[in-house]
């Protein structure tokens, strides 16, 4: 087990590069799915106090749509694709319009269909992320069925606290923001991909990246 607070710059940078490669691939997949350009921010490796997770990514009470997957194998981790609820709805509308050729407002589509669309986008984005980082690390992996939730940001991020809380007070997260470009004036679809390595997989990660 590693104490994340003692990681040096070189190690954090190497981990960030993992995020860069993962998100690059995820952005390509999302771009193909939505037929839109995707703007990708520079990924950040973040050390966040587990007591302040709720406020770290925005207003803790903000309603978000989130897709979560668990990956096990050579490098165990969890991944979450998290969007402001309005952005998630707009993305689902865009996707359904591409599939069926006509625009249907989100509110008129049954929730099992919108959730299934949202889950599928999350699944494609997060699977692409995982496949590229496991290729980089040379590890085998399995990916879980995705879970979806619409809720307050701080309740969603409890999952991070439950992963990192047992071993300390700081979580190590790799966070990248994506934005869909070429939308109509005044519309926005953005999302964060957050990689949550298992605390006991951090040593493996550093060894694979040859920074330990």
């Amino acid at each position, binding site marked *: 087990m590693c104490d994340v607070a003692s990681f040096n710059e070189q190690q954090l940078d190497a981990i960030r590069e993992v995020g860069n490669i993962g998100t690059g691939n995820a952005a390509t997949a999302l771009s193909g799915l939505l037929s839109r350009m995707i703007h990708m921010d520079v990924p950040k490796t973040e050390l966040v106090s587990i*007591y*302040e997770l*709720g406020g770290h990514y925005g207003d803790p*009470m903000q309603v978000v749509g989130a897709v979560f997957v668990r990956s096990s194998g050579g490098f165990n981790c969890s991944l979450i694709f998290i969007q402001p609820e309005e952005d998630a709805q707009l993305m689902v509308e865009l996707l359904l319009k591409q599939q069926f050729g006509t625009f249907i407002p989100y509110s008129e589509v049954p929730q099992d269909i919108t959730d299934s669309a949202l889950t599928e986008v999350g699944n494609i984005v997060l699977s692409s992320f995982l496949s590229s980082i496991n290729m980089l690390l040379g590890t085998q992996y399995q990916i879980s069925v995705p879970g979806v939730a619409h809720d307050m940001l701080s309740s969603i991020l409890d999952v991070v606290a439950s992963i990192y809380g047992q071993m300390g007070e700081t979580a190590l997260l790799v966070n990248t923001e994506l934005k869909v470009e070429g939308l109509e004036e005044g519309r926005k679809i953005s999302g964060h991909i957050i990689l949550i390595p298992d605390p006991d997989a951090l040593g493996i990660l550093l060894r694979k990246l040859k920074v330990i």
Partner: protein
Amino acid sequence: MAENSIVLGMADLMVVPAPIKLITLGLGSCIGLVVYDSFAKVAGMAHIMLPDSRGLSAAEKVGKFADTAVPALIEEMLKKGATRPRIKAKIAGGAQMFSLPGASAEFLTVGAKNVNETKKRLARMGIALIASDTGGNKGRTIEFSTSNWMLKVKTLGKGISEI
């Protein structure tokens, strides 16, 4: 009379005299534990994150784990004038935000474990748990009023209930 409000963050634990409103925002798998003595007019709240401290360092916040939060909260209540037979407890939270069919990860079911451990610790200390709103898959925001000793639970899409 208007109540001042105090918002508790993750792992916070606090005992206050009436009239003060105790609030915790956006509980997912975490637990909001409320204890009160309506005769002594004191109440406490803890925002519990995990069931068991497993003997972790003493430097950790006591409110973080059910096994350390419950005794600490009761002790603080007694210091502020409550007596044990009069203390009543209410809890909310402990949801499972994501269910991944087939995935075996201990942390996904931490909400249910938080609920069980909190109940067990209360029972062990002889504290009556008189109301609870736990489990499910939705987050909760809670407000405890020390005017009427009711716990208001807000759930997205389901509205507000009082327990």
